[in-house]
């Protein structure tokens, strides 16, 4: 934070805090996050495999893969946002679509002949699980108080 007013805040702590105890959400939301991640990974891998050719320039394949991944994830956003929440879906799915699309595009331009479609789809699904897991872990690190004035803490 560069703002001097923010710097002046005295108490800084991460994770849980007294005034805003984290509330536990139903388990099916976490399960839903993983289902959305797996589906996005698989569909991104499939779409990239169908579009990117084996002899493509790697840079072009990477950029096309990213664009394809973005389109896939934005389409799935419309399906999953009402069920799972906007940001909880948007952030991991965007990472899967963008970065997964780039990686899958690079791979398919170089190794398409050696990696069967079924393996590519499994890798897509595993990538989806990995990104959702990292998003959940990261959220646990960031969740809770960023800062609070001591007097505000006492009065609340």
């Amino acid at each position, binding site marked *: 934070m560069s703002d001097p007013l*923010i710097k002046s805040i005295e108490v800084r702590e991460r994770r849980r805090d007294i005034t805003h105890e984290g509330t536990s959400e*139903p388990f099916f939301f976490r399960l839903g996050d993983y289902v959305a991640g797996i589906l996005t990974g698989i569909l991104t891998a499939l779409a990239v495999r169908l579009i990117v050719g084996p002899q493509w320039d790697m840079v072009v394949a990477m950029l096309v893969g990213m664009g394809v991944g973005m389109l896939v994830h934005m389409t799935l956003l419309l399906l999953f946002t*009402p069920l799972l*929440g906007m940001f*909880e879906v948007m952030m991991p799915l965007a990472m899967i679509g963008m970065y997964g699309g780039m990686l899958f595009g690079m791979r398919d331009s170089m190794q398409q002949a050696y990696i069967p479609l079924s393996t590519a789809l499994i890798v897509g699904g595993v990538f989806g699980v990995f990104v959702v897991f990292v998003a959940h872990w990261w959220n646990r690190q*960031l969740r809770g108080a960023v800062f609070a004035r001591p007097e505000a803490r006492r009065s609340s």
Partner: protein
Amino acid sequence: MKIAMPVTAREKWDWLSLTYDLMTWGEDWRQGGEKRQLFAKIQGRTLLVSVGTGNDLKYLPPKCNLVAIDISPRMIERARTKASRAGGNIRLVLTDAQRLAFADQTFDTVLTVCTFCSIPDPVQGLQEVYRVLKPDGRLLMFEHVRSKIGLFALFLDFMTFLTRRFGPDLNRDTVSNVLQAGFRLQHEANVYLDIVKIIEAAK
């Protein structure tokens, strides 16, 4: 009192009122607990800026004394049924958050839920909130903001190009806007990553 409002913002939110409840169903479930904790802190005469379809009224403590505003007549219409179900003294008013139709120092608490992502000039809106708050009045916010993590921030910037025309901005720096409007920041907590936040400030 009739306030002249920007037609485009009103039309946008009138249109969004048709799908708003559907699109926020999951979010409502996941973040309801945090909202209930925040809403429990309201005291005295309270202003809820941008009531939307009234989804959040169920988190209010009983016997609250609340004025809820929105720029969209259709949102207000949909909120009316939920307001009657919520109990308490809730009055719905059609007005623009950038030009509030209330006298100076009217409210003890101002509450906002995903509001300052949508107001065209957020600092002007917050200055209006500052004006209508009593001295030492509290601003309680549940807002989504631009992430400080570059990876997410770039994406939120990109998505804002798409969402701005038919929904909220996703890359507002609301904490800085609160300070710019003259408030003293009292508390800031992350609800989801560093994007969905609870912000508490005092006049």
